[in-house]
């Protein structure tokens, strides 16, 4: 696995207490680092807010927020803006973790199933929470499906469908980022090998770094948009229920 390559954070592992060894690993610490960076950046964006923006930080923060609320309204509907904090956190966190892979001496935490599964699991739990919060007990009808008399078949199918979302979300993100990190590592190794041919190391990984940035953005957007679609499906009343 990629952890075997080692990162700057590997040096901190021996400092952890004994009980934390099975819980905290390099990916978890990189995730914390990404969270800390994100917190600092967003706190800086939200500091000294003025009605007329006077700093680029505030403009950037407003741009992020407006983009997220716009996405939520587009996918979920006019009331979708209230889900923007969750989806915004999801997007920025995943994006930042994806981009950590291009920093020398770091790995993308999203190249680990521990992180992507955690995010997918949280997303699906939050989707169920939003469904119950918006529609109450009638949200369970979503699992019964149509026609009602086929509930014995429908309920297991829908439950499996919900669970499969965890798998699809986590494996999609993990596979893409892990693959990108692997490609990057191989190209870096290839560049090192090129010393024998070109005397100096050739940065063969550079095009892949640019590609990694693109994939990072796309995968963060895909994860967030899918989460938004799941939320929209959970909070929207089915057509038949609306008619009643």
């Amino acid at each position, binding site marked *: *696995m990629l952890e075997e390559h080692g990162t700057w954070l590997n040096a901190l592992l021996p400092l952890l207490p004994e009980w934390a060894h*099975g819980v905290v690993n390099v990916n978890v610490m990189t995730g914390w680092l990404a969270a800390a960076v994100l917190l600092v950046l*967003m706190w800086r964006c939200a500091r000294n807010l003025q009605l007329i923006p006077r700093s680029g930080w505030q403009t950037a923060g407003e741009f992020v927020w407006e983009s997220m609320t716009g996405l939520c309204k587009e996918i979920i509907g006019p009331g979708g803006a209230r889900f923007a904090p969750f989806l915004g956190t999801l997007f920025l966190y995943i994006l930042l973790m994806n981009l950590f892979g291009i920093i020398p001496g770091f790995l993308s935490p999203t190249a680990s199933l521990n992180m992507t599964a955690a995010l997918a699991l949280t997303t699906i739990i939050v989707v169920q929470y939003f469904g119950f919060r918006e529609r109450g007990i009638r949200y369970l009808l979503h699992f019964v499906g149509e026609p009602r008399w086929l509930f014995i078949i429908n309920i297991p199918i829908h439950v499996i469908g919900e669970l499969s979302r965890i798998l699809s979300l986590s494996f999609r993100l993990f596979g893409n980022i892990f693959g990108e990190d692997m490609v990057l590592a191989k190209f870096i190794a290839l560049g090192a090998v090129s010393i024998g041919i070109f005397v100096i190391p050739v940065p063969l990984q550079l095009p892949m770094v640019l590609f990694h940035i693109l994939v990072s953005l796309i995968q963060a957007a895909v994860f967030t948009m899918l989460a938004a679609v799941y939320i929209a499906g959970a909070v929207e009343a089915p057509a038949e229920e609306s008619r009643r």
Partner: protein
Amino acid sequence: MGILDQLGIEPGALLVNIVGFILLFLLLRKFAFGPISNLLSARAQKVAEDVQQAADARQEADAHLASIQERREELLAEVDTEADQARKRAQHEVQRLLEEARARARERELHAEKNIAAQTERAIQELRADVTGLAVGFSERLLAQSLDTERHQALVDKFIEDVEKMAAEEGQT
């Protein structure tokens, strides 16, 4: 658990990641998204208020402009009336001055005619007195000496000549 191990999933790390993400979400909502969202709401409200104020100000300005235009129309009408009255007053004054000048001229004319008549009368009186004097002188001289026909004729001619001379002198004066 066998599958999880094969996939490299550690339940402890999974749980820590979930907790970490939830904490991050709560902190970002509290310290970043919340304030930004509130600010944008406040800005939207401010913009709506400003737009409303601008609309009110526009309405007020329109009303003010209408009242100014109305007042302007009134003033123009007043100016027209005043000009009309002034024109009429001027025409009346011109007429009055003309009539006054005509009356004065007529008066002077009458005065001149009277003067002429008085002077003519005086000249006639003077002439009459002179003629009377001459006639008296002539009579005195006629009575004082006997006259023959030729002498009589010469006296008469002299008398007529004196009268003509006097008349000529009167005409010159």
